[in-house]
């Protein structure tokens, strides 16, 4: 009846996961109780769970990402504190079996369920607004993509209490991940979580590419697209081109494990190195999928907070597309030690060094954007400026590792771990936090508190430096990665500094949570409220909308006549001292909400869970459920709802009023 699932799957003898799960369970129960008590279920169902509005879905992605980033941070705290007390004779507090699960879960969660959803969420939120569209190309598919990502995250977290997680690292290298060496359900949890979330990501990539290429407002030619849209286009093209490779690779490993196929096994002609090649043929583009949108966020922020157009816009576009293409030619640098020979290694080493040129162009463009501008040091800008420094350091160490002879010495060491955290934390995470602070007022109508934001920034900066600078050093000293026990007592001081650093990062994260709480409390305060919809003196179309924008975004699709679409409209209005005339409002058709997304994801979660535990009848039933959810959606006859002219006019006039008032103030002060 329940396949392989029985009571032995619950880790009753291990207090740590049970306590954690109990805590999470209590928090979930408390939230559910609160929602029920306040009667919010109807609102949640109508406005969020079944919503197909790209802004809502973007926010949901970001909430999922924030939760998972915190979950991944807990793993990081455990690793750093454990290593600090597991030197020499001391054994630390985590048995090897548990420690291996923690570093595997840390990497999996941070990349797939922290960084990825955050990036996808910000793209979802901002791209349609920036290109002047009312939604993405396929809104229901978009909802399904989000819920499928959430499914994957749920499965990974279920593994905490039911069964175990993989002990094979964030990429389950074969043959270690084959049944002969990993007989438990850990790798299966990994495979199904990644497979389901991966499909969600692929569909989201298809959706956003179509949106950017086809749904741009009149006059928004490709070379007038804001930089963030260009980098999003690059990232989503990479998703469409790279994620299917992940799907295929995960499928092969799944068949090896479930049906005894021989893709990656040691015996019967299988080829374990093929796994490493295939997973990195996806994996290297993946790091650019993460970093390109972050580059876009920084571009928007540098330009906005310097009060200048982005320096070298076209070279930036070229550099982005250059990176998109070249990112597919460097994957072998992840395993120079495979033994492919000097010529192959040299070719990939050179390609890897060349890809840094594209990023170098960008770094100089950002610096020149600030040069001569009136720079404002608000929190989004602080994160961006810190990124410039951390990313240059991370990039340099990357180029160092790209030299095959150096890589033979440094591979699999803490130097490598420091390098990729340097670029992923210092690039992607700084980027998404900057983007979160930057677009938060657009999503909710009030800004985040600056004081707590700066406290968070400095704590994170100290924590980041204290963790990763010693890590480089330890790597050079010869410390390998993923050590459950550290044999050289001479490294203890470094391990202590790193443990202290991770605690500073915890303090920084606490400050971010505090910032959110304080800002929600003071949201009506003059200091935080955003009546105008343009809190940062922005330059792209989203800042021409009220905060939060109406669900249809634009009362009338904008007619774009140059780069920095909103900046020119704004300058013109200020020069003339009046807003452009009210347009002739038209009726708007918007997609109707539908629970298809969450239904599909619900059954997909069940399919994943049932496959992990070999509960085959449940797989069948849930498969039928997915099919019926599709048919139910396909059978709707009315796909859109009409927004009446009156409703559009009312919303637009309400948005124009504060702008008109602000203009009148400027006229009175004689500043037009």
């Amino acid at each position: 009846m329940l396949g392989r699932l029985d009571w032995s799957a619950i880790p009753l003898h291990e207090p740590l996961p049970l306590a954690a799960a109990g805590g999470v369970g209590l928090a979930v129960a408390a939230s559910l109780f609160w929602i029920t008590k306040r009667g919010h279920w109807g609102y949640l169902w109508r406005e969020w769970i079944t919503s197909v509005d790209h802004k809502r879905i973007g926010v949901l992605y970001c909430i999922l990402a924030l939760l998972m980033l915190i979950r991944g941070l807990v793993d990081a705290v455990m690793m750093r504190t454990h290593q600090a007390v597991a030197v020499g004779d001391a054994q630390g507090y985590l048995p090897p079996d548990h420690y291996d699960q923690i570093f595997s879960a840390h990497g999996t969660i941070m990349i797939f369920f922290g960084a990825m959803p955050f990036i996808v969420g910000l793209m979802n939120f901002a791209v349609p607004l920036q290109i002047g569209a009312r939604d993405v190309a396929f809104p229901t598919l978009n909802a399904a993509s989000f819920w499928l990502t959430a499914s994957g995250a749920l499965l990974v977290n279920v593994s905490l209490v039911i069964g175990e997680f993989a002990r094979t690292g964030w990429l389950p290298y074969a043959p270690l991940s084959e049944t002969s060496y990993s007989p438990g359900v850990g790798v299966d949890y990994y495979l199904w979580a990644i497979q389901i979330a991966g499909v969600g990501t692929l569909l989201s990539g298809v959706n956003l590419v179509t949106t950017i290429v086809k749904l741009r407002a009149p006059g928004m030619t490709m070379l007038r697209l804001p930089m963030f849209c260009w980098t999003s286009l690059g990232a989503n093209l990479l998703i469409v081109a790279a994620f299917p490779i992940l799907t295929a690779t995960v499928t092969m490993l799944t068949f090896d494990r479930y049906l005894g196929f021989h893709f990656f096994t040691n015996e019967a002609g299988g080829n374990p190195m093929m796994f490493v090649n295939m997973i990195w043929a996806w994996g290297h583009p993946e790091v650019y999928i993460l970093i390109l949108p972050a580059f876009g966020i920084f571009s928007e922020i540098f330009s906005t907070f310097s009060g200048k157009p982005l320096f070298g816009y076209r070279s930036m576009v070229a550099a982005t597309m250059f990176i998109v293409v070249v990112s597919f030619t460097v994957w072998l640098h992840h395993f120079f030690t495979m033994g492919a020979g000097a010529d192959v290694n040299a070719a990939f080493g050179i390609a890897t060094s060349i890809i840094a040129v594209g990023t170098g162009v960008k770094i100089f463009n950002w610096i020149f954007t600030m040069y001569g501008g009136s720079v404002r040091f608000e929190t989004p800008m602080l994160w961006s400026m810190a990124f410039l420094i951390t990313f240059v350091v991370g990039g340099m160490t990357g180029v160092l590792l790209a030299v095959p002879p150096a890589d033979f010495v440094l591979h699999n060491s803490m130097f490598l771990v420091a390098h990729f955290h340097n670029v992923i934390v210092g690039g992607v995470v700084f980027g998404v936090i900057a983007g979160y602070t930057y677009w938060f007022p657009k999503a909710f109508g009030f800004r985040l508190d600056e004081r707590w934001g700066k406290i968070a920034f400095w704590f994170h900066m100290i924590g980041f430096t204290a963790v990763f600078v010693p890590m480089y050093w330890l790597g050079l000293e010869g410390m390998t990665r993923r050590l459950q026990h550290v044999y050289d007592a001479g490294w203890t001081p470094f391990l202590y500094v790193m443990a202290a650093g991770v605690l500073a990062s915890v303090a920084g994260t606490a400050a971010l949570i505090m910032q959110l709480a304080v800002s929600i409390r003071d949201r009506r305060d003059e200091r935080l409220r955003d009546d105008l919809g343009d809190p940062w003196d922005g330059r792209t179309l989203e800042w021409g909308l009220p905060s939060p924008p109406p669900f249809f975004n634009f009362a009338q699709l904008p007619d774009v006549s140059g780069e920095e679409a909103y900046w020119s409209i704004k300058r013109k209005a200020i020069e003339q001292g009046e807003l452009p005339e009210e347009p002739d409002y038209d009726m708007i058709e918007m997609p109707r909400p539908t629970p298809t997304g969450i239904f599909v994801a619900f059954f997909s979660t069940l399919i994943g869970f049932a496959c992990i535990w070999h509960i085959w009848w449940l797989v069948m039933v849930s498969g039928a459920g997915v099919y019926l959810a599709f048919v139910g959606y396909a059978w709707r006859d009315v796909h859109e709802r009409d927004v009446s002219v009156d409703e559009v006019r009312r919303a637009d006039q309400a948005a124009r009023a504060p702008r008109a008032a602000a203009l009148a103030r400027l006229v009175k002060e004689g500043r037009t």
Partner: protein
Amino acid sequence: MSAVPTPRRSEWAGPPAKDIVTAYGFWMFLIGDVIMFASFFAGYAVLAGGRAGGPGPADIIELPNVAVQTLCLLTSTLTCALAGVMAERRRMAWTQLWLLATGLLGVIFLALEIREFSHLIERGATPQRSAFLSGFFMLVGCHGVHVVAGILWLGTMMAQVAVRGPKAYVQRRLSAFMLYWHALDIVWVGLFSIVYIWGSIT
């Protein structure tokens, strides 16, 4: 030649009609799907030599069977296209008829594939036997699963055409289905050449 200047306002007039957006999105999806097949092709090519003393391509291929399969699938592409032409002319009875023919040809194709697989398994040439056979079954089987999904989609579409008639959204879905079915054909051409023809001559 004529000296009519191109208007500068040929820039970008805004979003095109919905059927164009849908078709574009579906093309993007198909590109992804083809890349997934490419990965399986690559896997097959890498593992083709890993026979572990078991049968090789020449030992397992039954060309007559595959020839009939190919004939079915190529013909089904024709019937699928005819269904599209009829749908465009809003002759829904003919559309249904050609869709039905497409589905039947798909079912015959699948039956032949199942026959091929069961013959192999009877002879001990199972995917567990060697890496080469794993790659073979995965590549051909993945195409087969796509055909199964296509037939399921086709049946659902036929029901929808019967109930809803030639509505705009039904037409859009039909055209997406046709892209999908043609893509399966293209993948089969690759399979036929690389796995079967190349396999039977080496």
